[in-house]
């Protein structure tokens, strides 16, 4: 309350009175002693002191005292409200439990999804002004690709012949082994980078130094910079790692620094370290197109402008350089490339969560309405007696805020469980951008959400209670018709929630069917119990001497010895080496068939090089002829196997056996057997034509091999012994991608599983909402028509009749909702078509099942209020008015 001269503070008056009294009494005393009136007053004031100053000081102190007293009063009132609220909540345990459950689920799911969005989208890229960074791709008009890596000579043109960029940097990638004393070898993804990458990105090394001009020139010997993640996981975050020497790909290298966290995110997954790219204008070439360029836009330059300039430069290069024919330019913001796909998904998710929260609020309001309705008369009386709207509102807010905060605590648990369950299903491409965790931001989000919900829920019922006619409430005491106003809204709302739940359940059903059907696809090979890992044979110790082909003793020796050692391990049923595991499509090659003209219509089969044990490891079935054996080696005649699709396609007349085919410019080899197809493109696509040769006859020119082991139990338990066996053959080899074939298969279904898990979460929530909605609305009806029910029962109506009336109402609302939902679901199913397998959007089973589940749930939710209605003692209900 602001006081002014027109609105004087009564405290000032009091202080004035008090001081005047003192001075007045003193004056009177003096006058009694014989002083004159004027002199007495003057003396009294003199003795008193500076009246104005004291008046001010005292005034200040008394105002301060008043403010303290008011604060104390407010705290006490708040304390009372909280106590009352807690009492009320614990008194209606059932209702409170349902509300807390519903809100807890809503807040929990919202928080979990917030974490996902926060982890993936909101966390900023670890670069300075990341929105100014762009990739400089080329594209190929002939093949129609949009993003192509560039040649190193192109880099110099991009850097020196443009004005749109403040800096341009380049990198390429390769795989290298890292050896250290006393530690297992690691296989790393290494990026070779130009000196100005740090500057372009705006990053500083976390430890040591980064790749600069000196390092590129090579004056200081071989160096490597570790990513933060490699330093953390492979070096135990030891600061002493910087400065130590390790062996990278057989060459002694010094670790000169550690990058900040997530610094390599723009290079995609799987980059563990950076090394200098030894590039000079003289050594740069147009081909191979093995490098990626990133640039920082110069101040004030827009992406479109840069695109125009780069496109013009590309055209110029096309004319200047024959290798650049058909190559255009594409300038793409780094942020968009990394997060583009995710944005749509996240926006959709947030929208869905928003809808769900709104429904939750309306639902819980409905639930609380039944209770508020009962107290409405009490509230009206209070208001009439002057308790004040504000006080009532505050009490309500206290109650609902306590409820929502408790729900938030439940919600945190729900969020944790949801994230835990979903983590396995989130596609790794999204996870690479940032892992969702239940961190401070997420917890803060849930608290803020809870408080907001508390306010909304607290205000809504009070405002509706206030709309009651106070006089009417005090008078006759009977509410209006049950189908008016807010009540109709409530029923419509529940119908809508039921429809939504139906749609989501149908979606879940379709995806669950899909996952089930996928699991039943005959892959042509068996994945359970199979371990796989890869290794890379470096050229220097495993040379590929082409004139000697196929007599490459180092590679052949490695293959033989490794298989031998691994097969000797206990619990190993079979082992094989291959260039591609069964879910790796590999490369294709053209073949020629002896005695036939080339036929481009045939298409190219995929090449698979294996050892004889492969057929036992993968359990591929033989259809005709024989399998490859140990006897087929580099000294015997060349043999090859075809799969069924290849046999049917290239030998439709059925004369594959004994025919001879040639590939890779080698001589003709005989087809000695036909095996069943392997679905190397995954579960959905049919197997391509394929041919198989033995690694002992055709050792690979490249160094990468995959070892597959069929074990008698859990594959990863054999990881250690198998690694040791490989190390026994060659201690300097690192193994990587150690996993089971089952995990690989699950990974191939990542997208379906992710969407299925998301829809499942939402379906569960919607189901809870529908159930609580039906329950809430019916409770509300029952509470409003208490008096009517009491009268009916008193007049001899059967309780069963009342029960079925209520049940009927509930089923009717649910039924209408389900019917509408089924129609909507059919429309929505078309969105999912791309993901479905073995079911169509219109397959009836999920629809029937969802309808059944929802009607059953609605029945259960209706039963409680129905029973309560009939259990009302007639006298009670009449008296309660």
């Amino acid at each position: 309350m602001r006081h002014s001269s027109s609105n004087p503070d009564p405290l000032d008056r009091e202080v004035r009175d008090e001081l005047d009294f003192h001075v007045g009494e003193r004056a009177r005393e003096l006058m009694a002693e014989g002083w004159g009136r004027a002199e007495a007053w003057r003396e009294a004031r003199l003795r008193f002191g500076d009246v104005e100053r004291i008046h001010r000081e005292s005034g200040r102190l008394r105002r301060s005292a008043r403010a303290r007293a008011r604060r104390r009063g407010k705290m006490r009132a708040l304390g009372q409200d909280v106590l009352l609220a807690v009492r009320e909540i614990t008194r209606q345990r059932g209702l409170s439990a349902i509300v807390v459950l519903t809100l807890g689920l809503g807040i929990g799911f919202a928080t979990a999804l917030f974490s996902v969005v926060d982890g993936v989208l909101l966390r900023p890229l670890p670069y300075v002004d990341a929105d100014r960074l762009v990739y400089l791709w080329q594209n190929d008009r002939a093949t129609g690709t949009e993003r192509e890596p560039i040649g190193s000579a192109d880099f110099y043109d991009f850097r020196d012949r443009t004005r749109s960029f403040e800096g341009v940097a380049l990198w390429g990638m390769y795989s290298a082994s890292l050896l250290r004393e006393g530690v297992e070898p690691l296989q790393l993804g290494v990026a070779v980078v130009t000196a100005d990458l740090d500057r372009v990105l705006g990053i500083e090394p976390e430890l040591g130094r980064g790749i600069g001009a000196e390092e590129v020139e090579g004056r200081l010997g071989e160096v490597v910079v570790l990513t933060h993640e490699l330093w953390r996981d492979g070096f135990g975050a030891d600061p002493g790692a910087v400065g130590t020497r390790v062996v990278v790909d057989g060459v002694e290298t010094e670790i000169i620094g550690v990058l900040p966290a997530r610094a390599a995110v723009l290079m995609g997954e799987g980059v563990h370290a950076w090394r200098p790219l030894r590039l000079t204008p003289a050594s740069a070439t147009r081909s191979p197109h093995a490098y990626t360029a990133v640039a920082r836009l110069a101040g004030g330059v827009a992406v479109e402008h840069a695109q125009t300039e780069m496109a013009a430069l590309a055209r110029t290069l096309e004319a200047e350089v024959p290798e650049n024919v058909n190559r255009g330019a594409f300038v793409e913001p780094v942020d968009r490339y990394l997060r583009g796909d995710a944005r749509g998904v996240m926006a959709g998710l947030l929208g869905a969560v928003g809808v769900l929260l709104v429904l939750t609020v309306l639902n819980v309001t409905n639930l609380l309405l039944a209770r508020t309705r009962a107290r409405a008369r009490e509230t009206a009386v209070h208001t009439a007696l002057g308790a004040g709207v504000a006080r009532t509102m505050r009490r309500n807010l206290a109650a609902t805020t306590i409820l929502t905060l408790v729900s938030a605590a439940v919600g945190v648990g729900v969020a944790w469980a949801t994230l835990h369950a979903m983590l396995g299903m989130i596609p790794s491409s999204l996870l690479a951008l940032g892992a969702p965790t239940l961190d401070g931001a997420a917890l803060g989000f849930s608290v803020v959400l809870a408080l907001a919900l508390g306010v909304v829920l607290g205000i809504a019922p009070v405002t509706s209670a206030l709309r009651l006619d106070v006089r009417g409430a005090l008078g006759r005491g009977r509410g209006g018709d049950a189908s008016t106003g807010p009540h109709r809204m409530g029923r419509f709302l529940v119908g809508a929630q039921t429809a939504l739940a139906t749609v989501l359940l149908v979606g879940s059903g379709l995806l669950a069917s899909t996952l089930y059907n996928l699991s039943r696809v005959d892959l042509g090979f068996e994945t359970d119990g199979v371990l796989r890992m890869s290794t890379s044979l470096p050229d220097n110790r495993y040379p590929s001497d082409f004139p000697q082909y196929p007599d490459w003793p180092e590679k052949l020796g490695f293959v033989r010895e490794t298989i031998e050692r691994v097969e000797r391990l206990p619990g190993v049923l079979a082992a094989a080496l291959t260039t591609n595991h069964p879910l790796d499509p590999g490369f294709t090659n053209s073949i020629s068939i002896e005695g036939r003209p080339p036929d481009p219509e045939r298409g190219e089969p995929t090449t698979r090089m294996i050892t004889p044990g492969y057929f036992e490891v993968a359990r591929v079935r033989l259809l005709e002829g024989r399998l490859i054996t140990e006897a087929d080696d580099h000294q015997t005649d060349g043999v090859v196997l075809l799969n069924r699709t290849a046999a049917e396609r290239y030998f439709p007349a059925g004369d594959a056996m004994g025919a001879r085919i040639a590939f890779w410019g080698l001589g003709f080899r005989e087809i000695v057997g036909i095996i069943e197809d392997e679905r190397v493109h995954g579960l959905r696509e049919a197997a391509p034509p394929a041919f198989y040769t033995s690694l002992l006859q055709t050792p690979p020119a490249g160094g990468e091999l995959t070892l597959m082991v069929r074990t008698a139990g859990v594959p990863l338990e054999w990881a250690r012994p198998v690694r040791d066996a490989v190390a026994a053959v060659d201690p300097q080899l690192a193994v990587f991608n150690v996993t089971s074939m089952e995990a690989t298969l699950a990974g191939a279904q990542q997208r379906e599983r992710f969407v299925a898990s998301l829809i499942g979460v939402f379906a569960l929530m919607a189901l809870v909402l529908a159930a609580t909605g039906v329950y809430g609305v019916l409770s509300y009806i029952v509470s409003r028509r208490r008096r009517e029910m009491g009268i009916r029962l008193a007049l001899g109506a059967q309780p069963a009749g009342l029960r079925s009336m209520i049940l009927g109402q509930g089923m009717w609302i649910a039924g209408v909702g389900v019917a509408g939902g089924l129609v909507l679901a059919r429309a929505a199913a078309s969105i999912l078509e791309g993901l479905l397998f073995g079911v169509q959007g219109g397959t009836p089973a999920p629809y029937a099942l969802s309808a059944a589940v929802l009607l059953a749930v609605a029945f259960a939710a209706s039963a409680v209020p129905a029973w309560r209605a009939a259990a009302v003692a007639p006298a009670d209900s009449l008296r309660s008015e």
Partner: protein
Amino acid sequence: MTPRIDSTSLYGTLNLLVLSALSSGPLHGLAIMRQIVDGSEEALQVEEGALYPALHRLERDGLLQAEWGRTDQNRRARFYQLTARGRKQLERERARWMRHTDVVRRLIHEEG
């Protein structure tokens, strides 16, 4: 010349004197002042107005409570009395003061 005690010096002392003056019952401001001055046989002279901020501070801090009443001349005055907290504080301050003067007395006697 009797030493003047105003509100800025010996502030703590003034509080103790006020609390002590009220120990036997409620008084208005003037009466409190008279108690202090009379009781000290005019050895202390307090600037009269300085009393009031002290009273109001004690009231704000919960050691005194006040209400308006009537003197025997039927004039309106504000009467102060000790709260429970005030009484406890008085005991504490008395004890502290006693300890303080004890020490000083001992020191003086030793020197003497």
